[in-house]
């Protein structure tokens, strides 16, 4: 048993070195890791499109286009509508561009909730240990026992179909992975010398947690946040696809739902329903790429492969 503890301590100090370097790693790995860089570029690209959507999109995404007085419905790609039009005569390309807005909104706010709740739960549980830890970890177990998609559906049906309710429902569950990981890191960090010195110097728990421990686990939390970003965008799309989405937001999931229920599949309007899926895929991939980079921070041993 004692030997095991010793072994554990050995691992801890290794981890500590990794953590100490993690802030500089956090910025460096984007430079060094090509994959992480690609992930970051995709995120930035979507962000820029979201900001400049009105400038880039040739039409209003809701506008039913008329040419020579006739509605142009179910058009294939042509010179005026590069991805064609929907069954209501709306420009698919413009919808795709505007779809970046809810994606960014959902991704960033869900990631924020995940980082905030996950970090707080992990910090408090790992720092205070004992009963507080047991209680918080049982709560985390419960969160792991709730099926994600069904929960979001039920809660959104209950609270009403809006982007914020979808984000809230996702945030209420997605923190669970972050909390577990952060907690185990806090358990390691709190045993370090500088925490002990701070305690001896009479620093309050509050100060130790936020001043001394948080900076060491924040990079890790942010990486989990970046994974959550892609995951949240994917889920929002799925929920919108099922018809529980925000009816006023033109999201990629809404576009796919719209295409699905208006027989775009049987008409073979590939230019309508293929692009939104590719957009979602790229964003999720970006999360994976950044997450893959994070493995290098956490488990440098894997670098050899």
């Amino acid at each position: 048993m004692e030997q095991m503890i010793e072994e554990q301590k050995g691992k801890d100090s290794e981890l500590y070195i990794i953590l100490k370097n993690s802030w500089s790693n956090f910025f460096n790995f984007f430079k060094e890791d090509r994959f992480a860089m690609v992930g970051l570029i995709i995120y930035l690209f979507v962000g820029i499109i979201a900001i400049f959507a009105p400038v880039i999109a040739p039409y209003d995404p809701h506008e039913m286009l008329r040419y020579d007085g006739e509605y142009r419905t179910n058009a294939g790609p042509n010179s005026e509508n590069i991805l064609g039009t929907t069954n209501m005569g709306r420009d698919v390309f413009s919808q795709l561009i505007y779809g970046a807005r809810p994606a960014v909104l959902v991704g960033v706010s869900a990631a924020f909730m995940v980082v905030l709740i996950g970090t707080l739960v992990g910090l408090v549980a790992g720092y205070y240990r004992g009963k507080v830890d047991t209680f918080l970890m049982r709560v985390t177990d419960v969160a792991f026992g709730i099926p994600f998609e069904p929960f979001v559906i039920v809660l959104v049906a209950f609270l009403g179909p809006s982007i914020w309710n979808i984000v809230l429902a996702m945030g209420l569950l997605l923190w669970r992975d972050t909390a577990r990981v952060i907690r185990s890191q806090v358990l390691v960090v709190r045993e370090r010398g500088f925490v002990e010195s701070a305690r001896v110097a009479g620093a309050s728990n509050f100060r130790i947690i936020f001043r001394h421990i948080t900076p060491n686990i924040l990079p890790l939390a942010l990486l989990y946040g970046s994974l959550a970003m892609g995951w949240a965008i994917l889920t929002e799309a799925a929920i919108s696809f099922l018809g529980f989405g925000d009816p006023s937001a033109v999201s990629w999931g809404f576009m796919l739902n719209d295409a699905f229920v208006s027989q775009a599949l049987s008409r073979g309007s590939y230019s309508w329903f293929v692009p939104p899926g590719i957009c979602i895929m790229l964003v999720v991939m970006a999360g994976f790429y950044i997450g893959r980079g994070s493995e290098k921070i956490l488990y440098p041993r894997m670098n050899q492969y």
Partner: protein
Amino acid sequence: MNWMYLLRRIGQMILTLWVVATILFFIFRLMPGNPLAAYIDPTFTAEQQQELMRQFGLDKPLWEQYFIYMANLLQGELGQSFFYKDSVTSIMMNVLPNTIYLMVFSFVIAYVLGILFGVLFAWYRGSKFETIGLIATLITRSAPQFWVGMVLLAIFSFHFGWLPSGGVSAAGSQYNSEWDKLTSLEFYKFLSLPAFTLIFYLIGLPLLLMRSNMLDVLGDTYVEMAKMRGLSKYRIMFKYGARNAALPVLTAMAVGIGYTIGGNVIIETVFSWPGIGRLLVNAVTASDYPLAQGAFLVIAAFMIFMNFVADLLYGLLDPKISAGGGK
């Protein structure tokens, strides 16, 4: 396996189930509007409405409803569906087999193929075959399931007309029994698109896990020894390598099965697959609370149980967890 660990873990599982059931009760009871709105005909008189409320036990105080709900749950009684006017348990029993067929079929194929390709990717590490394979795997992991389903539907069902677009049987026809269903070729035609969509998504995890485990194992001396002894490539791959890497994959599979039953709501809806996930979506849309609640609970219970199985498997993998008393 430590018995105390097992008992404590079972206790934890029951506690989690109870808390989830309680949360669910309050979510559904606190829903705004009359829970019977979908059920009550506008022509009903106030007395008739009162009578209905009484029948469903909705006239009692909340805490009393909670105790009745819990007592019923313990007996496996999930109430009456507002919409189908039938017992929730029997409605679910009708659709549950479909969900299980889809899952078992997809998981078996996805894991067999995933393990196979994982081993091959590890063996041919650094080759073009591996690079292309890994990119393809990444695509399977990040493409939205429902979108993959849509593309497949557009191509194989609507464009070529090779496969049906949804359901489990042709319009108007029915299977006489579950056995009849499983032995009819027709059923597999309906199963193939949703199963392929699910396999497409599931294959990535066992593949990547197997690959990284194999990479660990391949460097070991006994594999080197086997190579030197001149054993065939495939014998080394599967007898020496894969055997050691299989348990983590099995653990991942247990967790994966648990998560997939929740995620199935989407695939089942795309393909109108009459399973528990689609039942949940339809019940929520129709404000059929007892049915939605029942379907949610079954999905949650299944997931909690699979997490439990995964933990036990994990305990086998790493004896420190079960012997060392958790923390």
